[in-house]
């Protein structure tokens, strides 16, 4: 019997030897490995001028089956191959930061806009300035500050469509309950009462994915920006704090009130984001706070139900605002050896032709980030139409978590505490102010 073991172990050690020799081989010639040639390997394998197609390595966050389709189409149009590395959205920026430290970023990255990420990535030293690209002039004026620096430098251009934060609602459920879109928080409660009477979950919350709990407050913060102009700049220079953001605080207290009055799904603490999307699409729930990127996911997973879903901004009495999440940025690391090919790729993506491919493949993507791009009205999905309607009347502010001076971390866990009655919206505001102050200080931001 021990013979069997001996044979097994022998083959094992043989395998190890083979592996070890293979190591030696790889060490000697890094180009022999399947990896994209890392920065620093002697001669780049894919220099752009040969007749062979250039392969662009491209990191993206979160998976989506339709993405491969449009990316390939655009790649084909400009004659490049794409090597797409999908990273989980939550870990994406940490990975970039680590890779930036060793100049090992892929040829094309997409990252969140805002000073915080840009500083984290050390854009000045690590990314190529794209200000001479003509498409920069086409970026929508509202979101330009998120792409064009005050000194005119451009460390990346929009690589997606604009998305918004607010509430997704199920139109069939609303009709059944005989309610219309609430225009104030009082109406939100009235609508919830009627939805409950109609046997629906009025407001769906998915605390298991705690980031989804942040949306109402972030969406409501734009009312603070509307009503106390300059509040964001003051927060960023330590002259004000989140404690001064009344609507931000009220949004979280409102969620808690909804829970107390039985308007929220009873399993909200174990529910996930995908549960929420399902509930709102199937009409089991009436309302669900989301970013409008949710529509693309619904389209991917439950295409038959997409047109049952609609969208409205966080309801506060008076003039309406809506919080916009400026699109992820396409940036080209300075370490890229294929920068010219990547520029071509981006240029085509931003052109009306490229945008057409993008929006045809992703009809629920959102609002184009480039001027002069006309969406085919007849092809628009219902929730997207409503979203565009909202953006025509409501004043837009970019989300505060992209706009603060330093990282304030994820605060969904504290919102869980609010919902369970351990803390209040004011406590959260105080906590966030504290974290922001500490992180801004560690970063050396002026005023802290």
């Amino acid at each position: 019997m021990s013979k069997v073991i001996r044979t097994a172990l022998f083959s094992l050690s043989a395998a190890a030897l083979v592996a070890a020799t293979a190591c030696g081989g790889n060490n000697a010639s890094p180009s022999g490995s399947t990896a994209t040639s890392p920065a620093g390997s002697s001669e780049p394998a894919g220099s752009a001028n040969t007749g062979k197609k250039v392969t662009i390595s491209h990191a993206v966050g979160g998976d989506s089956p339709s993405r491969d389709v449009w990316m390939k189409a655009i790649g084909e149009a400009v004659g490049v191959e794409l090597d797409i590395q999908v990273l989980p959205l939550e870990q994406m920026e940490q990975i970039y930061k680590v890779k930036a430290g060793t100049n090992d970023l892929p040829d094309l990255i997409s990252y969140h806009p805002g000073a915080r990420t840009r500083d984290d990535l050390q854009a000045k030293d690590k990314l190529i300035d794209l200000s001479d690209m003509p498409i920069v002039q086409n970026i929508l004026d509202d979101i330009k500050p998120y792409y064009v620096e005050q000194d005119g430098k451009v460390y990346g251009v929009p690589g997606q469509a604009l998305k918004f934060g607010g509430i997704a609602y199920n139109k069939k459920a609303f009709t059944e309950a005989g309610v219309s879109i609430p225009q104030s928080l009082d109406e939100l409660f009235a609508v919830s009462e009627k939805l409950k009477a109609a046997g629906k979950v009025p407001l769906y919350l998915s605390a298991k994915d705690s980031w989804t709990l942040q949306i109402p407050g972030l969406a409501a913060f734009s009312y603070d920006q509307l009503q106390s102009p300059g509040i964001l700049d003051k927060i960023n220079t330590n002259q004000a704090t989140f404690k001064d953001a009344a609507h931000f605080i009220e949004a979280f207290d409102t969620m808690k009130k909804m829970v107390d009055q039985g308007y929220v799904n009873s399993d909200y603490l174990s529910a996930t984001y995908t549960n929420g999307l399902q509930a709102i699409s199937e009409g089991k729930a009436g309302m669900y706070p989301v970013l409008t990127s949710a529509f693309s996911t619904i389209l991917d997973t439950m295409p038959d139900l997409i047109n049952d879903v609609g969208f409205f901004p966080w309801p506060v009495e008076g003039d309406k605002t809506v919080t916009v999440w400026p699109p992820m940025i396409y940036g080209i690391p300075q370490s890229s050896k294929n920068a010219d090919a990547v520029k071509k790729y981006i240029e085509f993506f931003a052109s009306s032709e490229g945008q057409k491919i993008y929006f045809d493949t992703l009809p629920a993507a959102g609002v184009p980030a480039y001027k002069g791009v006309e969406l085919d009205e007849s092809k628009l999905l219902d929730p997207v139409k409503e979203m565009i309607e909202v953006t025509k009347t409501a004043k837009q502010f970019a989300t505060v978590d992209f706009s603060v001076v330093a990282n304030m971390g994820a605060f969904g866990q504290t919102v869980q505490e609010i919902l369970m009655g351990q803390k209040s919206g004011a406590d959260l505001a105080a906590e966030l102010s504290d974290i922001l102050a500490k992180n801004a200080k560690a970063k050396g931001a002026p005023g802290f």
Partner: protein
Amino acid sequence: MKTRSLPVGQIVLIAVLSALSLLILVPFYLIFINSLKSPAEASELGLAFPSKLEWSNYSKVFEVADLPLAFTNSIVLTFSSVAIILISAAMAAFAIQRRKDGWSAALNVLVMLGLVVPPAIVPLYKVLSFFHLNGTILGVVLINVATRSPLSVFLANQFLKSISKEIDEAAIIDGCGKYKLFFRIVLPLMGPIMVTLFVFNSTFVWNDFMYVLYFLSSGKQMTLPLTMYLFIGQFGSMWNLVFANILIISAPLLIIYFFAQRFIIAGMTAGAIKG
């Protein structure tokens, strides 16, 4: 084994163990049965038999992610990491356990450190980059070996205590060289622990996705756990697909384990006969 003469005791024992096994088997059954349901039936998360067996769930999972590629990568990564871990750890344990001097004491401390200290991602990245190994499978293999091997050295060390030094001495007197002694005599005797370590380490490496995420940089290097992580992020509410995905990814390890079992049994019987 003379226990055969106690049938009543055996029956009671088997009954108790069977009851306990349900704690394990029911969750596995839950995974399996729900992977064959329609989305609506699966969302009840129950144990009932599906009204119709949806084998197509499995092909759907295959469609969404490039599983064949991920499979190949996972297999290459796992087997080369585990092979190097096993051989290097067994050799190191041999030196550490048999020697009684400053070296072995110092190495013992190093092993303990490896059990306790977390790997530091960022400095590790710089080291890899220094050797031009970032973005290569080999780099991840070496990291797996470095971070996972202390446990194996430790366990092999413990096991070696039970193999008497008298065997070594007899072999040396017979004119055995040190390498022959280790590879031909001691290593075969370490069979049971080696198989155990093989199973432990394959599990670690196969299921890891952090290192893959940080240290590889191409879509072509995608591994199975990473596809599952991304898949659940998107299709998390489709329990049928999620469970199908879990089964697809766990099946190879379960098969390895069932297979390895036989060797463990072989080792056991060999010991018994010798006695």
